[in-house]
């Protein structure tokens, strides 16, 4: 599991606009389970996610991925761990414009130096998995919202990570697509992946997928409950 002890993240320390996005947060995220971070915007969910997902370092506190402490790891190690272990799905999808769908899906794997044909094949397989096989060569500007989201999910999976992190995944989706998204998450969890979602959408936090819901407000936890 991922354990966080007393995590604090402060921006602009020492300046008049000093601001703590996350204050003294301690939590545990179990592997092979789905955890939901619930809270309004500005509550620090995104910051906490980026710390848990090895994208940022906490200003204070300690964080462990399994047995390994990752608090003070230099960026290159952190990135390597992140690449291997985590798959990110962003709120705005953040696909790279000008590239094709296939190139977008392959992009996270470029720095690993994996052989191009192998990588390509795997990317194509994921696209096929999400019914996007025929769109592999399309530019992403031409995709619909649902298609873009599935590309984002395929991209998150390209390095075969064991943990999927999604930040407000349903924010730009209608209910139908939101439910589709949750269905995909269910599939992934059934495959043994760990899911971490941040959302203030009831479709997400009220769904039966969530094993544990953690509430946040103003950078602090207000409850860490496991649902029965």
């Amino acid at each position, binding site marked *: 599991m991922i354990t966080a002890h007393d995590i604090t993240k402060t921006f602009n320390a020492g300046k008049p606009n000093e601001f703590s996005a996350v204050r003294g947060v301690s939590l545990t995220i179990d592997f092979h389970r789905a955890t939901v971070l619930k809270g309004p915007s500005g509550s620090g969910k995104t910051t906490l996610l980026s710390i848990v997902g090895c994208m*940022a370092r906490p200003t204070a506190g300690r964080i462990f991925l399994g047995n390994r402490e990752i608090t003070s790891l230099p*960026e*290159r190690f952190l*990135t390597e761990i992140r690449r291997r272990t985590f798959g990110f799905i962003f709120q705005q999808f953040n*696909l790279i414009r000008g590239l094709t769908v296939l*190139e977008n899906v392959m992009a996270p794997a470029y*720095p690993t*130096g*994996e052989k191009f044909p192998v990588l390509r094949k795997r990317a194509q397989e994921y696209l096929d998995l999400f019914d996007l096989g025929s769109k592999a060569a399309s530019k992403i500007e031409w995709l619909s919202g649902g298609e873009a989201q599935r590309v984002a999910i395929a991209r998150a999976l390209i390095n075969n990570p064991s943990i999927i992190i999604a*930040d407000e995944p349903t924010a730009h989706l209608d209910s139908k697509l939101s439910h589709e998204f949750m269905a995909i998450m269910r599939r992934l969890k059934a495959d043994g992946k760990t899911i971490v979602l941040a959302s203030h959408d009831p479709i997400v936090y009220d769904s039966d997928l969530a094993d544990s819901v953690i509430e946040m407000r103003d950078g602090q936890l207000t409850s860490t409950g496991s649902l029965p």
Partner: protein
Amino acid sequence: MSNVIERQRHIIDFTLSSLLRRKGKNSALLAVYTLIIFILASVLFFSHALRSEAGLVLRDTPEIIVQRTMTGRYQPIPLAYAGKIGDIRGVISVRPRLWGYYYDANFLANYTLVVPGENPPEPGTIDIGSGISKLREAYPGDTIGFTGFDGKPRDYVIRKVVSDESQLVSADLILISEADYRSLSGIPANQAIDLVLKVRNPKEYTTIAEKIRRLLPDTRPIIRNEILRTYDAVFSWRSGLVIVIFSAAALAFVIFAWDKATGLSAEERKEIGILKAIGWETSDILQMKFWEGLAVSLTAFLLGVILAYCHVFFASSFIFAPVLKGWSTLYPQFKLAPIINFGHVAAIFFLTVVPYTITTIIPSWRAATIDPDAVMR
């Protein structure tokens, strides 16, 4: 190891596609970069080719020339001196030379008058260079007139037009007999303009020059190597001067490049943020920026150098030949032999690509250290 190579290939791939995606901004940069290299390369190629050409010509200058000076001014030298110099050990031969300049006021042109050592024209006839022939529309068989030192006109029949082999030397040449020369210029029969010596042993140049000076204190011996060195220094100086001026343009270019590099558009910023968020490290982005810089620099360099080569050697440097050559109404149409000095190519590289690369180090680094966190919001 193959892993490392594959990673580079992926990054290069991505870099090239990213460059092509932003054609507008990159083409502006490429155009200015190429222009700078083109100008610098043209100047260096041109002056080097001129210098080589001059060097070839100067190779045939006499080993030692003896002139006479009075209070630092150049004077005709008495023929009697030739005898005394001929007696110095090591001197094979002494030949007096008669030559000078003739200013043609009607055509605003300067000609060079020479009495050749071999095959001089008959008195009353002259050979002229192709430049003069064209300027005064005078051809073999025609009569051409010049004004002598006493203001009286003299006519000469043109025997032939000097062949074009080395235009640099012959375009403004008039070959004339000794008698006609003395009559035209007023130089008395017992004097010459200077003396040229042939020496047995090149190591003796300095010794012989010393002896001449001791023997004839009002003379000035000039050794060929000194002429070559001086010409070289002047050429270098001239092209160096251009480079100093060029640095102003280079500075402007560098500022422009800096601006382009630091002024990452919001979209570029986002793209890098996304790359970092999905798993690219800072060093991967730095590599990307490196390949980007290399691609732009190499393209600009090759293009600029090739265009400069064509400009100088095929198009006769039409853009700035007038500035570099000087002024005259009489100019040889010579095609320069295409010689490139590798040292100049390296110098061009050091004066353009190195400053460009250095300027982009910090902006590239700034780009590479963009916080992926920012992209999450």
